[in-house]
């Protein structure tokens, strides 16, 4: 057989593309399977944790047991201002100059977040005090830090950018997935002629960019900094180490595959690339974000992917549908087939969406005390969906039969109606992007409508240990009680509490509990460093081999009163593994 040079060229391209895909997968594999070694721990510091100094230190030194890179280092004074200068790192030793005025008496909080060699974040806080008088005269008035709530400038801009990038990501994914599914649904042999091929490749490029950008933005948000932090390698490092990093890489890989599938030279691999691309892109939705953490996890993940696939497929199919309307006789057949598929997809989409909303809204929806923001945005999204459904129904019942009957006049209103539907679709995607950055009520747990009287009871799965939390009347302290399965006071080896606040930039700060007259413990309001929302983590060591961790949310008002805000479903520490996949073994 004579070798056709054109055929050879195509073959070579195939080989090249295959090698590219293989290399991409291998690179991803190496990136994602970072094997965790021992994490860095703080071996020493100056000033030491809990130290009470006579004079303000000019420098902060932290010493870790292994080389680290610093993500965030803050030394906060009573007003919540950061007094630490830029940190210098030599292996495991970190130095930072401190700008504490000589007469700066008071309590200071050192909050650090570093990455150990395995790119695992390690974060904690500790306190030291500077007293004008020697430490022996402990009565020296020491102002509690952070008595005013802290609002970070620039954070809202980063949040806005993250939402915009998310919306862009959803829109491009809808266009690409929709075009791919439309070809399949419409049954047009548009495979070889790539009418929208170039446009799709561009869309995939935008999608890859949006995916990768979301890594940096996630990092910037985690750092508590504005969008300017994108210029900071630490933001990228941190974003990469988060679940969003894994998800973004998965969606970027999906876009690359879909883009390759749209390229005319890869006809043979198109089917596989399309399937792999869509699955990889969809997996991003359950690797990170609300879809990754909702319970029951397996069901939620399947529902979530189904919801996303149907939604993106529907919205994204509309542009090629409008284009197909101009194609004469075939148009009516394509429109009918599309409409038929939508009859299956839309109920799936709505059903899965409603179940997910119920899971996210949690029991809070029925208890009446819910986070307003989340439901506000969800409400807007549902209104848009209702209008879009009405339009689609009108298309199907009124316009489509006329179009099929050959009424030329029906083509224009149908096309315009579909365009309106598309516009609504993009608005819905924007609302979805906004939703993805709202905290669903389920993560706020059982929110009580009467914070003053709130008693929060947290129980271990076996019921062997119960932790009862209560704000003292007047909110001047948080009361902690431990009970066993028979509601008798439980004796334990140790009880440790730590507070953290993302808004104030304070990592897990250990707090001492004082024994209470009633056999429990109390955390005085003064021990909570400042106003705002705090994550409380309580670790109970019942016996040498039995330990439980309880989490709750605590508010300190501007008036200094404490109020419980329910259980906290979100882990406090960043020590969550990068992959959220459920172990089936």
């Amino acid at each position, binding site marked *: 057989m004579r070798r056709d040079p054109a055929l050879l060229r195509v073959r070579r391209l195939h080989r090249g593309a295959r090698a590219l895909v293989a290399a991409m997968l291998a690179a991803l594999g190496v990136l994602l399977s970072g094997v*965790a070694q021992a994490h860095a721990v*703080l071996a020493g510091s100056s000033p030491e944790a809990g130290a009470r100094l006579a004079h303000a230190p000019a420098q902060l030194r932290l010493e870790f047991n292994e080389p680290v890179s610093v993500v965030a280092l803050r030394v906060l004074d009573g007003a919540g201002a950061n007094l630490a200068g830029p940190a210098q790192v030599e292996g495991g030793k970190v130095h930072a100059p401190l700008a504490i005025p000589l007469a700066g008496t008071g309590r200071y909080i050192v909050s650090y977040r570093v990455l150990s060699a395995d790119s695992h974040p390690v974060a904690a806080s500790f306190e030291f005090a500077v007293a004008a008088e020697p430490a022996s005269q402990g009565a020296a008035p020491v102002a509690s830090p952070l008595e005013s709530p802290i609002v970070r400038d620039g954070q809202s801009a980063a949040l806005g950018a993250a939402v915009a990038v998310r919306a862009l990501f959803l829109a491009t994914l809808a266009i690409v997935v929709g075009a791919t599914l439309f070809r399949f649904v419409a049954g047009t042999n548009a495979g070889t002629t790539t009418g929208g091929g170039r446009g799709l490749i561009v869309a995939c490029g935008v999608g890859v960019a949006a995916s990768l950008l979301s890594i940096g933005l996630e990092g910037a948000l985690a750092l508590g900094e504005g969008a300017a932090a994108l210029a900071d390698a630490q933001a990228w490092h941190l974003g990469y180490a988060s679940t969003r990093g894994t998800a973004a890489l998965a969606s970027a890989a999906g876009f690359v595959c879909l883009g390759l599938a749209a390229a005319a030279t890869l006809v043979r691999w198109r089917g596989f690339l399309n399937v792999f691309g869509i699955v990889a892109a969809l997996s991003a939705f359950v690797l990170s974000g609300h879809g990754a953490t909702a319970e029951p996890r397996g069901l939620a993940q399947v529902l979530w992917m189904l919801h996303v696939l149907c939604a993106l497929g529907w919205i994204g199919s509309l542009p090629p549908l409008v284009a197909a309307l101009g194609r004469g006789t075939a148009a009516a057949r394509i429109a009918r087939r599309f409409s038929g598929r939508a009859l299956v997809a839309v109920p799936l989409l709505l059903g899965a969406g409603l179940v997910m909303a119920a899971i996210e809204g949690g029991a809070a929806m029925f208890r009446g005390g819910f986070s307003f923001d989340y439901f506000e945005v969800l409400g807007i999204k549902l209104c848009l969906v209702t209008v879009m459904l009405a339009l689609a129904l009108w298309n199907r019942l009124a316009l489509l039969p006329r179009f099929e009957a050959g009424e030329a006049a029906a083509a224009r209103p149908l096309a315009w109606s579909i365009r309106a539907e598309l516009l609504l679709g993009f608005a819905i995607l924007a609302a979805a992007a906004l939703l993805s950055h709202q905290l669903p009520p389920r993560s706020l747990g059982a929110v009580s409508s009467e914070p003053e009287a709130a008693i929060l009871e947290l129980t271990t799965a076996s019921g062997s240990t119960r932790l009862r939390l209560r704000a003292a009347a007047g909110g001047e302290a948080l009361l902690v009680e431990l009970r066993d399965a028979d509601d008798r006071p439980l004796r334990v080896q140790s009880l440790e509490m730590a507070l953290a606040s993302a808004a104030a930039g304070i990592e897990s700060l250990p707090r001492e509990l004082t024994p209470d007259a009633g056999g429990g413990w109390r955390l005085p309001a003064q021990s909570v460093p400042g106003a705002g929302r705090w994550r409380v983590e309580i670790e109970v060591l019942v016996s040498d081999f039995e330990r439980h961790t309880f989490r709750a949310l605590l508010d300190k008002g501007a008036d200094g009163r404490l109020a419980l805000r329910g259980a906290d479903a979100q882990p406090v520490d960043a020590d969550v593994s990068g992959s959220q996949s459920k172990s089936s073994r």
Partner: protein
Amino acid sequence: MIRKFAFFAAAMAATLALFGPAGRAQAHATLDLREAPAGSYQKLAVRIGHGCEGTPTRVVRVRIPEGVSSVKLQPKPGWKAGVVREKLATPQTDAHGKTITEVVREAYWRGGRLEDNAFDEFAMQVKLPDSPETTLYFPVVQECDKGVHRWIQIPEAGRSARELKEPAPALRLGAPQKH
């Protein structure tokens, strides 16, 4: 066609490897085995990968889960190995017809020194309970010159141990061995 299929399979395997369980957990205290036949005699070794806060390990204590019997420790030079026994409320009869009045609740190794930058294994021989398709947890307390690691967290039903900070070493019991 075969090549196409092979490539497809390879790509799917790569996908699973990517998004499936990623290999980590080297930092934790683990067992050298992940799975063993139910009802079998097994050598199990607890692997300690690092000290606490950079200081050397001095004591390793292992809680023996219920149902595990015939515990024997492998002597370890430089360490004093021993067990803590607990009397049973109701005596039981073992497979050989002997009456058992007490069980081993804890195995320990003391008095040695394992540097933070080294790892070591602490081995024992046990008879596993005859209950296939269950998971046994061997909580470990590691005491160092400074600080303690408690590898004692047991995942809640439906949760992954990977979400835990200090998970207890786990052993999955498989189908019983044919004699």
